[in-house]
């Protein structure tokens, strides 16, 4: 009784609370299901979509293995084979692996944090619709001879217009660039969700390892993806408009692509692996019935791996003629990353060994053990290829194909199947079959090793990657046949899983099968469409093990926020470190705007790919208009004032400034923008370093008069002052002060003028972006400024429109705060650009 008296709320709670929660969080039915935003619905659809792409890319793999089964085979033409291996790799990396782990974040994270949903539910829904449409169109290109052929890394000069004149490469560049935007949207959601929607008491030190891994994963996405987004922009601009970033005889360099691509591409491996490791860190303690051994070390390993992974990109370029000492730095970092990865493996083994009872062997744990074996082998061959001489020997051979499949299939696919079997009872009213599950595991485990282990040998005896066939007399025949047999065995395993899914998986947004594994984390609390009946107060890392009455107390509504005090969808926002309740976030429900925005944005990119500019622009306008409609309804204002959520804690239902979740999201978006710009600055200096003698080339026009960049700088600084003044002059609620929107408008005009003046200054000197790489880089700075400037102008216009509509004042000011924050960043970016473009050439010569 004494313990119960300390609970946040009294029982019994009124029945109407549950009924109201069910009404508020109800999932739309019929065709309106596409408007759903609940994380359970969106998450299951997202996982399902990723799995369909996995199956599709798997079929392409089988076609390739069929082609390679015997020498001199003509089952596939060379050109189609090139398209198939490109689409296979691209689909597996961009349409399956990253979306699958992001989908699991959307599905599992709110449940593990006992939040009612992620903080931006429509953003999650937008991300998946963008991904579905863009991904499907990209994949279908393989059926129409329109698929890219340059490999999943699309190296120039092969992918330049001269060598790939058709639209095939553009489908990759625009399609994948667009899908990366979707991944970044999901990452913003996950960062803010993990840091701000944890239940009261769940400090960082008590956060489930999966949440840590998703936080690190999302942090890596926002730093790594902008580099490849910039690379795709540069290559597409070169293909479409002839700006020679990668053309050597005009001062460009194809290796710039490799640097940008692999600065994303190597972390990508860990972006995929770390969440999977997080999933394993959740499954192992449950099956061992023992808390995770070395929780702190696992956190260290996640952060350490993430950082080290950014220092490895050059190890994909060991064969490109880089000085040996530089190779030494990256070889060292490549080997060092094995240490944090090893820490995790030892921690899992220690947890398995530490359990007082025997480690439970069932389908999820079999997949975990399979993962441990396969991933360790992949890690060991990874250390081998981190050694420069070994890398030179096996570079571009099947040894590398074997290595990265051991890392990626072992490190991601096996944990994913463990996840399917382990968490299915959370999302489905029936469990998957244990008997079929064991068949799935053994077929996949044996099939995988039979298929990929021989490739180490095939590579060592000289078979190069990406060849569509091979002569009869090279000694590769037997090994290739074995690999093909293994691939089919693996495929049969996946087929059995699909049958199991069809027979037993019955999605249920209203909760699954309880807690069949007797796990200790919050996703196993009973609940409904609204997540848990009340949001628990957490005192340990395994609350269900350490707080034995928690399930009952939560179900009785005795913890936090048992009802819906604002009458709408809401959850608790807590402080980022100690998870103290700060305010109630009010979230939007089902709606069309995010669906329309995503579909038409996909249309914009895809129509642009096939050079249908006018329809593309129409789609773009519709998409932006939908985003504006979507955003218009988000700023509710302070509403009814503070509400009691339990334990005497009264929190506001509205928040602005650095405490608000929308400010956090904008801040994360600014990190994305700054990563993109830093990648640009790197590219500028890289091209100068590789050819300082042509930077700027002899005969190039002189830089514009210094008065022009100075005027641009004054315009943006003045504009920032104007925005600041606009914020200070926002009127009190219910009053008007016309100076506020005037100052905001002046700020927008100043920014637009500065961007235009900078571009005009260069144009007036006679410099042209098509003339050489220097000119292209100069105009690229203006292009990036135009991007961010345009976003600021739209946001400023939005803030002014809200003022006119009486929805912006000095209390209800989220739309202005977001516009101002992005504006201040834009000013910093433009000033840095002016220093680089106008200052550096003057210093260098």
């Amino acid at each position, binding site marked *: 009784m004494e313990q119960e008296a300390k609970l946040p709320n009294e029982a019994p709670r009124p029945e109407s609370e549950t009924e109201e929660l069910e009404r508020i969080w109800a999932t739309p039915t019929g065709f309106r299901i596409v408007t759903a935003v609940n994380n359970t619905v969106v998450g299951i659809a997202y996982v399902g979509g990723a799995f369909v792409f996995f199956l599709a890319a798997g079929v392409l793999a089988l076609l390739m293995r069929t082609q390679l089964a015997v020498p001199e085979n003509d089952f596939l033409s060379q050109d189609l084979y090139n398209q198939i291996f490109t689409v296979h790799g691209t689909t597996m990396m961009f349409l399956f692996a990253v979306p699958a782990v992001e989908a699991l974040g959307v599905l599992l994270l709110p449940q593990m944090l006992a939040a009612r949903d992620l903080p931006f539910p429509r953003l999650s829904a937008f991300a998946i619709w963008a991904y579905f449409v863009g991904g499907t169109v990209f994949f279908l290109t393989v059926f129409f001879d329109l698929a890219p052929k340059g490999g999943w890394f699309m190296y120039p000069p092969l992918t330049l217009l001269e060598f790939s004149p058709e639209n095939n490469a553009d489908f990759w560049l625009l399609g994948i660039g667009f899908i990366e935007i979707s991944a970044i949207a999901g990452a913003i959601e996950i960062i803010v969700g993990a840091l701000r929607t944890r239940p009261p008491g769940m400090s960082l030190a008590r956060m489930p390892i999966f949440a840590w891994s998703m936080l690190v994963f999302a942090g890596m996405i926002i730093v790594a993806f902008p580099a490849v987004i910039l690379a795709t922009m540069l290559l597409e601009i070169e293909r479409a408009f002839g700006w020679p970033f990668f053309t050597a005889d005009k001062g460009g360099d194809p290796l710039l692509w490799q640097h940008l691509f692999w600065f994303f591409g190597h972390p990508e491996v860990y972006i995929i692996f770390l969440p999977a490791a997080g999933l394993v860190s959740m499954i192992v303690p449950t099956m061992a019935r023992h808390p995770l051994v070395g929780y702190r070390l696992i956190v260290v390993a996640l*952060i*350490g791996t993430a950082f080290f992974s950014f220092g490895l990109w050059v190890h994909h370029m060991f064969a490109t*003629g880089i000085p040996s000492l530089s190779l030494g730095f990256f070889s*060292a*970092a490549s080997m060092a990353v094995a*240490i944090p990865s090893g820490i995790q493996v030892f921690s899992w083994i220690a947890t398995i060994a530490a359990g007082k009872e025997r480690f439970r062997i069932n389908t999820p744990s079999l997949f975990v053990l399979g993962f441990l074996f396969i991933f360790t082998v992949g890690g060991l061959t990874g250390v081998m290829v981190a050694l420069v001489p070994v890398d030179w020997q096996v570079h571009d051979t099947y040894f590398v194909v074997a290595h990265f499949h051991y890392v990626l299939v072992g490190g991601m696919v096996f944990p994913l199947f463990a996840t399917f079997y382990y968490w299915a009872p959370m999302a489905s009213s029936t469990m998957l079959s244990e008997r079929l599950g064991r068949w799935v595991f053994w077929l996949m485990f044996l099939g995988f090793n039979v298929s990929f282990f021989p490739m180490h040998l095939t590579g060592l005896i000289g078979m190069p990657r990406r060849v569509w066939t091979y002569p009869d007399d090279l000694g590769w025949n037997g090994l290739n046949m074995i690999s093909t047999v293994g691939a089919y065995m693996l495929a049969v395993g996946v087929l059995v899983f699909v049958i199991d899914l069809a027979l037993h998986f019955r999605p249920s947004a209203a909760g699954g099968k309880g807690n069949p594994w007797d796990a200790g984390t919050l996703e196993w609390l009973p609940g409904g469409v609204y997540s848990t009946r009340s949001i628990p107060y957490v005192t340990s890392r395994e609350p269900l093990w350490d707080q034995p009455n928690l399930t009952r107390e939560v179900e009785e509504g005795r913890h936090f926020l048992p009802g819906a005090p604002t009458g709408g969808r809401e959850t608790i926002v807590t402080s980022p*470190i100690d998870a*103290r309740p700060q305010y109630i976030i009010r979230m939007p429900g089902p709606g069309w705007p995010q669906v329309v925005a995503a579909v038409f944005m996909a249309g914009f990119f895809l129509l642009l790919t096939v050079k249908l500019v006018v329809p593309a622009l129409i789609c773009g306008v519709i998409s932006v208009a939908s985003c504006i409609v979507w955003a218009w309804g988000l700023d509710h204002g302070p509403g009814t004032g503070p509400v009691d959520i339990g334990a005497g804690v009264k929190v506001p239902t509205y928040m602005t400034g650095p405490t608000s979740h929308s400010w956090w999201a904008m801040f994360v978006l600014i990190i994305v923008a700054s990563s993109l710009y830093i990648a640009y600055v790197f590219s500028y200096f890289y091209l100068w*370093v590789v050819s300082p003698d042509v930077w700027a080339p002899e005969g190039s026009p002189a830089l514009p008069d210094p008065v022009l960049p100075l005027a641009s700088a004054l315009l943006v600084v003045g504009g920032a002052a104007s925005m600041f003044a606009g914020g200070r002059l926002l009127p009190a609620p219910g009053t008007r002060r016309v100076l506020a929107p005037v100052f905001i408008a002046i700020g927008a005009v100043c920014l637009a003028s500065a961007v235009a003046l900078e571009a005009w200054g260069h144009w007036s000197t006679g410099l042209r972006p098509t003339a050489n790489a220097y000119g292209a880089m100069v105009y690229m700075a203006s292009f990036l400024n135009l991007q961010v400037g345009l976003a600021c102008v739209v946001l400023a216009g939005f803030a002014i429109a809200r003022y006119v509509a009486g929805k912006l004042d000095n209390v209800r000011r989220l739309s202005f705060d977001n516009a101002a924050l992005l504006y201040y960043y834009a000013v910093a970016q433009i000033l840095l650009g002016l220093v680089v473009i106008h200052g550096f050439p003057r210093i260098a010569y």
Partner: protein
Amino acid sequence: MAELHHAEREPSVVAMLAYLMLGPLVWGLHLLVVYGAHTLVCALGGAPSVSTTILLAATAVAFVPLALSVLLQRRTGRLFGIGDEADDHRVYDAISRTLCLLSLFGIAWSGIAMVALSSCAQGR
């Protein structure tokens, strides 16, 4: 549940992230400096000895303060605003310390490359 009301004990999130990631951040800066400086010196035709000197200096500058922060972990924590009264400060100290050790290892490993290999020489 009393701790839910003591918001004043909570460190700033930026300081906490910087504290936890201190080691990897220094490691990243070190890699940036040694790789950037070496590439620049070699590309511009500078003397290899200049490159080696810069690399040695950068390694020492990265290594010494990081090693000190490991030796004086709690004091470093306080420097970042994570006081002794902060909840779970021991967990954060342990994470920061181990990441610093890992980073020291990475910095030393990169530094060793200088001893074994000549600056600006092509490997092949």
